[in-house]
């Protein structure tokens, strides 16, 4: 008979052994020899923390009470593992790419790194798991008590409460020592994982040993055992179909959602291929764990007195057969189950609490957060240690308050339903991009509320929290709100009822909330990242790095990741960026990486908050992008304006150039004009002077000669006068000083006047044809000036038309707003190269006798411009044509 003292000694030795194993594993990992620590076998064994003391002790009790139903607790996880392709594969990939640290982190990260969501999930997890931890304390202390009173009918001689306290303290110490040695989630729990693996082996071996002893030692073989089973009180199938289905689904859901399972499945996963191996290896483990449950229960029911606790058959059956050693092994198995569960569960919970509750609060108290002095790592580790102590203390408190009452399985199931509420948000987050933060929050809160109302509170029994009248008739007598018959549907098993309604309404809330709300940009980005994790295991979102300084980042990263780790990260990044400097550029990629590394230590929401404090909230959101787009639109517009201005300036410059060229030309023309005019003036002046000198000095001149010379002087004086007249006229016209005397008249009159004027005293006859002129064209202009133009044109024709029968045809054409008068002669056409010059001053073309001053056409042009019309030379077959345009 093993004494309590022996048992405690064995426990201490066992715990010391675990310490050593864990310590050795940490050492090996630290020295880089830890590859074997991350083998598929260890991964599979670490999953066995699913099998807690509840399954170790409770499954047998469960079987003794309700037959095969206990197995559903293992069927769900087996199906989830075998169906790893559907969900676990994606979950693990998401967890690895997003560096997720916990189930709260996953949900918060998916729905836009929402801290509210993380806190809700954390609180729910703590509430859901605390009874479970109490359950482990209870089972360990109960099993201890068995050894002082093997019948298991009373609490025995020992003080269960103080035993529970010491167990809790021991567990807390172990967890603190190995769970919070260093910070980074990715390689932090080598010691713990290996210890769990060892414990997994111990509990499996213990249960198998008891089972083998029962089947072959007590019953006497397999077939005898089967007969015994069939003849026992649980020998017939008595499972309720709805419970069977609901519990299978529930256990599968809880397997995914339990914080400790998430920790070992996703966070501690080192290689996705391990999952593939575990997909068949872990069901083997589960099957072996449940293989001998029914035989042990049956034998226990046979051998032990009526009132013994079936939850402890695993211990009491060997004890009753005098197998003290086997009982101690069995006790160690149960102890292992309890300790491994408590360690990992508190670790997972403390990570959640410190990352999602303590750190955000601490950061907000710090004001500028990460940039102030102090090592954040110490804060995180301290927060984690305190959280571990607090969670275990809560479990202990629950254990004290509940007084260790109730069947183990019942408490376990309630816990399962609680954590299963994470499932809709998890599955929806990974498979449905439309899931939003609002939807997740709605679903979680609705599901959790229903869980508390229909499962947790009634579990304390009538009149403890909920009065029996409330349970019977509903709150305020509203029948359809009865906690165990919602909506008036009675007759459902309470567990099935709670599972059904909580998950149904949770899912509905999630879907409805998601459908009617609109996600924030970060949520949408994260949603795409999570759902399409296989398409692009890329970056969650971009930081714009301009605002963040590498130095600040370095300081912060050192505080979170530790000096060496951070320096290694920065150095590697600098090399990747291709320069030798110590600090890399704060590119968005790099900020992304730093955030992800930090989120492995402090959670996505906190890491995000810290980086955004440094970067100044410069995470690129859609709003930012829109602002940038706005800005670029403005810049584009500005640049367009600049372009317009520049082209305007270009135009102006060109105009100025033109003007300058014109001015230069005018200046040249002026010089030419001056030299022309002096030449024109000098020619008659020279004649006049020389002939007047001859007349003055030549006394012997004959009168005929005198007359001749005097007439030459006279002609030259007239020519001079005409020239001066013309010049004056032109100057007046050019300066715009001319005053026009508009009058009404007909074109024919003006032309007749001009023809008459020119033909009076003309030497040779020019045939002027005005037959095609319409007599009725009315004019309203300065008729005298117009006549002057016509006279000029006609006299030009008279002078220069070199033809045997000179002929001038005058015709007119009236259009809508202009009258065109054509003067067409049949003389020699003006050479093409001189066309441009004929309207210039002093241009004399075909002027062989030099009688013209070359101002006539220039004056004509000026007059026509003044009159608002124009004059042009038109090339014409077999002659010349001038076109005079008079505005109407």
């Amino acid at each position: 008979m093993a004494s309590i003292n022996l048992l405690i000694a064995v426990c201490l030795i066992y715990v010391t052994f675990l310490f050593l194993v864990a310590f050795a594993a940490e050492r090996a990992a630290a020295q880089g020899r830890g590859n074997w620590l991350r083998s598929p076998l260890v991964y599979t064994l670490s999953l066995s923390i699913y099998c807690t003391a509840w399954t170790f002790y409770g499954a047998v009790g469960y079987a003794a009470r309700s037959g095969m139903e206990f197995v559903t607790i293992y069927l769900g996880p087996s199906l989830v593992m075998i169906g790893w392709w559907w969900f676990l594969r994606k979950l693990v990939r998401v967890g690895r790419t997003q560096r997720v640290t916990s189930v709260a982190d996953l949900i918060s990260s998916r729905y836009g790194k929402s801290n509210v969501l993380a806190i809700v999930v954390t609180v729910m997890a703590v509430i859901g798991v605390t009874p479970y931890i109490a359950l482990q304390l209870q089972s360990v202390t109960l099993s201890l008590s068995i050894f002082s009173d093997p019948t298991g009918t009373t609490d025995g001689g020992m003080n269960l409460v103080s035993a529970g306290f010491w167990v809790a303290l021991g567990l807390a110490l172990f967890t603190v020592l190995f769970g919070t040695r260093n910070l980074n989630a990715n390689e932090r729990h080598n010691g713990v994982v290996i210890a769990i693996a060892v414990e997994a082996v111990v509990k499996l071996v213990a249960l198998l040993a008891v089972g083998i002893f029962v089947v072959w030692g007590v019953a006497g073989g397999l077939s005898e055992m089967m007969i015994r089973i069939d003849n026992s009180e649980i020998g017939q199938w008595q499972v309720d179909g709805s419970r069977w289905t609901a519990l299978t689904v529930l256990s599968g859901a809880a397997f995914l959602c339990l914080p400790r399972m998430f920790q070992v499945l996703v966070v501690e996963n080192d290689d996705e291929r391990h999952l593939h191996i575990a997909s068949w290896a872990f069901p083997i483990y589960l099957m072996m764990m449940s293989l001998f449950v029914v035989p042990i229960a049956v034998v226990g029911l046979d051998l032990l007195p009526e009132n013994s606790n079936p939850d402890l058959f695993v211990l009491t059956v060997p004890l009753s057969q005098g197998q003290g050693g086997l009982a101690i092994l069995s006790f160690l198995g149960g102890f292992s189950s309890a300790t491994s569960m408590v360690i990992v569960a508190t670790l997972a919970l403390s990570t959640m609490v410190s990352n999602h509750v303590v750190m955000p609060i601490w950061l907000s108290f710090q004001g500028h957060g990460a940039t102030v002095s102090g090592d954040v790592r110490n804060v995180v580790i301290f927060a984690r240690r305190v959280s571990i102590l607090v969670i275990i203390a809560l479990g202990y408190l629950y254990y004290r308050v509940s007084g260790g009452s109730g069947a183990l399985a019942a408490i376990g199931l309630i816990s399962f339903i609680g954590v299963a509420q994470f499932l809709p948000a998890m599955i929806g987050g990974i498979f449905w991009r439309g899931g939003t933060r609002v939807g997740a929050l709605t679903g979680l809160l609705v599901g959790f509320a229903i869980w508390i109302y229909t499962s947790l509170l009634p579990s304390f029994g009538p009149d403890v929290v909920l009065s029996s009248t409330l349970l019977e008739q509903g709150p305020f007598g509203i029948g359809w709100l009865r906690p165990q018959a919602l909506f008036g549907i009675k007759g459902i098993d309470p567990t099935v009822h709670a599972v059904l309604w909580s998950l149904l309404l949770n899912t509905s809330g999630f879907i409805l909330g998601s459908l009617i709300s609109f996600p924030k940009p970060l949520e949408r980005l994260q949603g795409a990242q999570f759902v399409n994790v296989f398409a692009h295991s890329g970056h969650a979102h971009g930081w714009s790095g301009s605002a963040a300084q590498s130095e600040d980042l370095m300081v912060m990263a050192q505080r979170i990741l530790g000096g060496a780790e951070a320096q290694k990260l920065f150095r590697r990044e600098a090399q990747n960026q291709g320069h030798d400097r110590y600090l890399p550029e704060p590119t968005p990629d790099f900020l992304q990486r730093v955030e992800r590394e930090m989120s492995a230590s402090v959670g996505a929401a906190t890491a995000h908050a810290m980086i955004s404090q440094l970067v100044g909230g410069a995470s690129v959101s859609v709003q930012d992008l829109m602002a940038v787009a706005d800005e670029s639109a403005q810049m584009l517009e500005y640049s367009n304006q600049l372009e317009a201005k520049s082209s305007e300036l270009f135009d102006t410059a060109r105009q100025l150039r033109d003007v300058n060229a014109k001015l230069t030309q005018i200046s040249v023309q002026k010089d030419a004009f001056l030299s022309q005019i002096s030449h024109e003036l000098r020619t008659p002046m020279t004649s006049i002077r020389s002939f007047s000198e001859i007349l003055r000095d030549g006394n012997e001149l004959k009168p005929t000669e005198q007359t001749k010379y005097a007439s030459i002087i006279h002609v030259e004086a007239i020519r001079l006068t005409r020239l001066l007249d013309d010049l004056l006229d032109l100057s007046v016209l050019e300066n715009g000083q001319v005053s026009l005397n508009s009058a009404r008249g007909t074109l024919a009159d003006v032309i007749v006047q001009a023809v008459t004027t020119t033909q009076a005293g003309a030497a040779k006859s020019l045939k002027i044809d005005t037959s095609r002129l319409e007599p009725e064209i009315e004019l309203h202009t300065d008729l005298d000036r117009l006549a002057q133009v016509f006279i000029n044109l006609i006299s030009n024709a008279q002078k220069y038309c070199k033809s045997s029968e000179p002929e001038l045809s005058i015709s007119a054409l009236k259009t809508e707003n202009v009258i065109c008068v054509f003067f067409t002669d049949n003389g020699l056409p003006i050479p093409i190269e001189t066309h441009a010059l004929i309207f210039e001053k002093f241009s004399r073309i075909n002027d062989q006798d030099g009688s013209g001053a070359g101002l006539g056409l220039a004056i004509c042009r000026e007059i026509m411009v003044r009159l608002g019309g124009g004059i042009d030379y038109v090339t014409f077959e077999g002659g010349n044509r001038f076109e005079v345009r008079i505005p109407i």
Partner: protein
Amino acid sequence: MQPPPSALVFLERRGYRQRRMMDAIRLLPLVGLLLWLLPTLWAANGSDGVEPVRMSQAIVYVFGVWVCLILSAGTLWRYLKGSNDDVGTTEHAVKTDPK
């Protein structure tokens, strides 16, 4: 997701088999669920006139399904591990070049 232009419509034998194994892996949990939910249809203790299913039969059935599922999953794993180490980490079966 649109397959890349170079994706093969028809795979050669090995790739084809591999994809069917993937299908089997996906199908397996559904088969398991179906088989394990069958007991809900069994006559339970207390049904009138029907002999209830014996516990030993139930144990053999449940554990038999379990063993079959584990063996199938293990076989599929072995098969896929032998043909492609990267299996399970790629969304679609890796297209092998027929050349």
